[in-house]
């Protein structure tokens, strides 16, 4: 659509601008302010320059949390994306099954995040939880509060439970937008099921998959509440992700300076990913228009 140039449109954006300035810019400036200072209480602050940043980037604690978070995010993607595509392909395309599937699948998305944690905390317990009870019954020694591997497995299965539906819903929306004529053409050419998937369904899901991948990456990179409720970051530090570490530092220990420095670095990492997200998505949009123009 051709847009007209009109700088008065700024007035329409102004309310959003003021609101977001209040909720985002002012707090962010506080963070920047703390990141360069040290405090000994009584609201006395001393300029320390980039000391906190040097300390943070050299600290093992931060490296470990970052690596754990990256491993977590990539395992989530490796499981949820193929699983989501597979389930979307098998979903009914019409009839009573469609609303039933959509509503039931979307349900985990609307459970408050700490309740997701509570649900899995209970579900995985060996004494009162269904999952833990049966795993121990068949001889697997499963205890997520003691065993780091069990804790990781619980956190990952919980995230798969919580968010795979998002991928399913997005892929499903992409699939139902494919015109029937494409399938007819494939049928006439005698295309195999794989060819239909590879050359018709996958390209049509391209843009929604991109959104799914990036949303899942970023949200899993910010994860806090669910693992915090289930494992509290433990056993030891084995499931302490960046957000958990940050909250521990900022609110638990009230180390304002280091926490602020970590916030900024953390935010910059995410900002980098959002930039990639935005650019790739815009390019994908431009490509789509390009193809549409050719048809």
């Amino acid at each position: 659509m051709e847009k007209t140039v009109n700088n008065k449109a700024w007035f329409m954006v102004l309310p959003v601008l003021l609101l977001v300035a209040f909720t985002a810019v002012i707090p962010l400036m506080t963070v920047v302010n703390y990141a360069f200072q040290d405090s000994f209480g009584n609201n006395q602050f001393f300029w320390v320059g980039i000391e906190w940043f040097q300390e943070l980037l050299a600290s093992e604690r931060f490296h470990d949390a970052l690596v754990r978070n990256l491993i977590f995010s990539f395992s989530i993607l490796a499981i949820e994306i193929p699983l989501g595509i597979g389930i979307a392909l098998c979903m009914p395309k019409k009839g009573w099954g469609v609303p039933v599937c959509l509503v039931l699948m979307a349900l985990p998305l609307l459970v408050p995040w700490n309740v997701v944690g509570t649900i899995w905390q209970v579900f995985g317990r060996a004494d009162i939880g269904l999952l833990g009870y049966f795993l121990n019954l068949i001889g697997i020694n499963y205890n997520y509060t003691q065993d780091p591997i069990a804790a990781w497995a619980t956190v990952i299965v919980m995230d798969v439970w919580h968010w795979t539906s998002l991928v399913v819903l997005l892929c499903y929306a992409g699939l139902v937008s494919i015109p029937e004529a494409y399938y007819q053409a494939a049928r006439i050419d005698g295309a195999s099921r794989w060819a239909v998937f590879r050359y018709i369904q996958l390209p049509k899901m391209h843009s929604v998959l991109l959104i799914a991948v990036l949303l899942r990456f970023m949200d899993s990179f910010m994860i806090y509440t669910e693992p915090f409720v289930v494992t509290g970051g433990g056993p030891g530090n084995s499931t302490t992700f960046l957000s958990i570490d940050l909250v521990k530092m900022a609110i638990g220990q009230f180390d304002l300076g280091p926490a602020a420095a970590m916030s900024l670095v953390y935010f910059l990492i995410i900002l980098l990913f959002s930039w990639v997200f935005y650019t790739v998505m815009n390019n994908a949009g431009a490509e789509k228009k390009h193809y549409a123009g050719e048809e």
Partner: protein
Amino acid sequence: MSTTTGTATIETGVAAGGQAPRSRARARAQRTGSRYAFLVPTVYITFLMLPIYWLFNMSLKTNQEILSKFTLWPDEPTLANYMVIFTDPSWYNGYINSITYVVLNTVISVAVALPAAYAFSRYKFLGDKHLFFWLLTNRMAPPAVFALPFFQLYSAFGLIDTHLAVALAHCLFNVPLAVWILEGFMSGVPKEIDETAYIDGYSFPKFFGKIFMPLIASGIGVAAFFCFMFSWVELLIARTLTTTAAKPIAATMTRTVSASGMDWGVLAAAGVLTIVPGALVIYFVRNYIAKGFALGRV
């Protein structure tokens, strides 16, 4: 929705018109494939429902039954746990608090996002692309980064422990989201409609309220749903900004840990009750959920 038939139709189509033996064999293989295709969503939904069932199951048991024996369904179903919540003000006020700030946030977010989304979808202006990107970055900001500065900011304004504080804080991620979703829906409305309305002598507010808003009603519904959803599920910020008077139900749940051990039954009942509002609203937007998650761009 005539184009939504998908693979099922190909397979029956192939079967009907299968002349060559090779394609007939393939058609048979595909038909058996599609006959069992329903199993995948069924297994998946079972996986989704089991933990929720378990929570529901626990909410109907007494603590004694939960801890003393392992039963797949309650021996003596009881509503006592729910009664605790509905009779104790510190429990049910948590509910009222959550709903108050969620609704407040939804109204604020959608109201400020409407004109902004219109501007982004219709006009080019100085710095529009940068502004749009900047809004997006706020959706991507980790709440953990903002917890502490929010606490100090809202303390300075004396807003701590009010519904307004949580509603405003949640605007951090909901306003950008609402702008994105609404912009996606608005871009789907042809510009000629605006121009025709102006030629017919409509003023801008009249055009916006009487013609444009009804056209994007589903978009407004979806944006409101998403604001509701993300405000409802968020806890870190909501918990940081409240102490008692505006404490959300989800934060109240941590109270079940007491000296005599966990009160599992009440915890489960509270959990079940937090799922109910989501389950109710989801039904109304079931066909638009994916479009909303794709920020209006499917």
